[in-house]
């Protein structure tokens, strides 16, 4: 599919908007529908779309395997880190009220970071599964 002009042009037009929508779903999740999981899968879907049109190797140049694997662990660590930040600030595990002098602002801060953690892990796992499935053929298995 790498030589199909229509697909390439449409993909180049659409992918920025898909990525923007993923960011919108991520950061607007406090007010509208959405959140970390949805943003993560939309992000991964955009990358899968890119890989399908432009080839797996181009996608691996944008997001290398090592980075994707690091994302899988980094998201969970970020989430747990927010939990321990609550402990260090004198509250319970995953207690956001203590993260800021203003309890409501603390809630905002805690939710922002754990949603970021969820999005990073989910998009990492989805992309890694895709890379592993799509990469099997190239290695002649």
């Amino acid at each position, binding site marked *: 599919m790498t030589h199909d002009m229509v697909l390439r042009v449409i993909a180049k037009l659409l992918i920025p908007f898909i990525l923007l929508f993923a960011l919108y*779903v991520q950061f607007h999740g*406090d007010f509208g529908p*959405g959140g970390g999981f949805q943003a993560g*899968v939309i992000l991964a879907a955009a990358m899968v779309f890119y890989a399908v049109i432009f080839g797996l190797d181009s996608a691996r140049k944008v997001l290398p395997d090592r980075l994707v694997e690091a994302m899988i662990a980094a998201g969970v660590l970020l989430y747990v880190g927010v*939990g321990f930040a609550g402990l260090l600030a004198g509250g319970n595990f995953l207690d956001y009220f203590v993260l800021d002098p203003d309890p409501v602002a603390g*809630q905002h801060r805690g939710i922002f970071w754990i949603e970021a953690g969820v999005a990073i892990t989910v998009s990492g796992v989805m992309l890694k*599964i895709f890379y592993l499935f799509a990469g099997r053929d190239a290695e002649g*298995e």
Partner: protein
Amino acid sequence: MEALIVNVLLALMMVSVVVLARTRNLFAVIVLFGLYSFLMATVMVALDAVDVAMTEAAVGAGISTVLLLGALHLCRSEEAKPAHKPWLPLAVTAATGLVLVYGTWDLPAFSDPEAPIHKHVAPRYLEEGPRETGIPNVVTAVLASYRGFDTLGETTVVFTAGAGIIALLRRRRRAHEADREDKP
């Protein structure tokens, strides 16, 4: 009107499932799976569960279709003829379905405000959530704040799934590379 839309969509889903079961061409089956997921996502939008619809459209119709196409690339595109008659599995499936339908008779009616699930902690989340967390979207407030520990568990499940698939598919690649190095 909403009930009509949902019922039409569910009827279309039933049709697609029947066609799915009868189709032998696996490429057509994968396309039908994608169609089924999009119909499901539309049902979710009609039921005002937009975040579930987004997940269904992105994962069910998008990523898993691509993964299935990738799997199809590695095997033949025509389903093999079944080696046995379908009557026993069909009977077991029909019986299980009937038991499940029988079970739904005891459930509270759809969107019944008196249902037990709406009587326990839900009123407190709805009344106090926006004030306590300052977040207008109660779903986010419940998922990320009140039920933060559960969401941590869910994220860990996703992480474990990824780690498991890496462990399964990567080892084969290493064995293959070692094989290749041994040959010359």
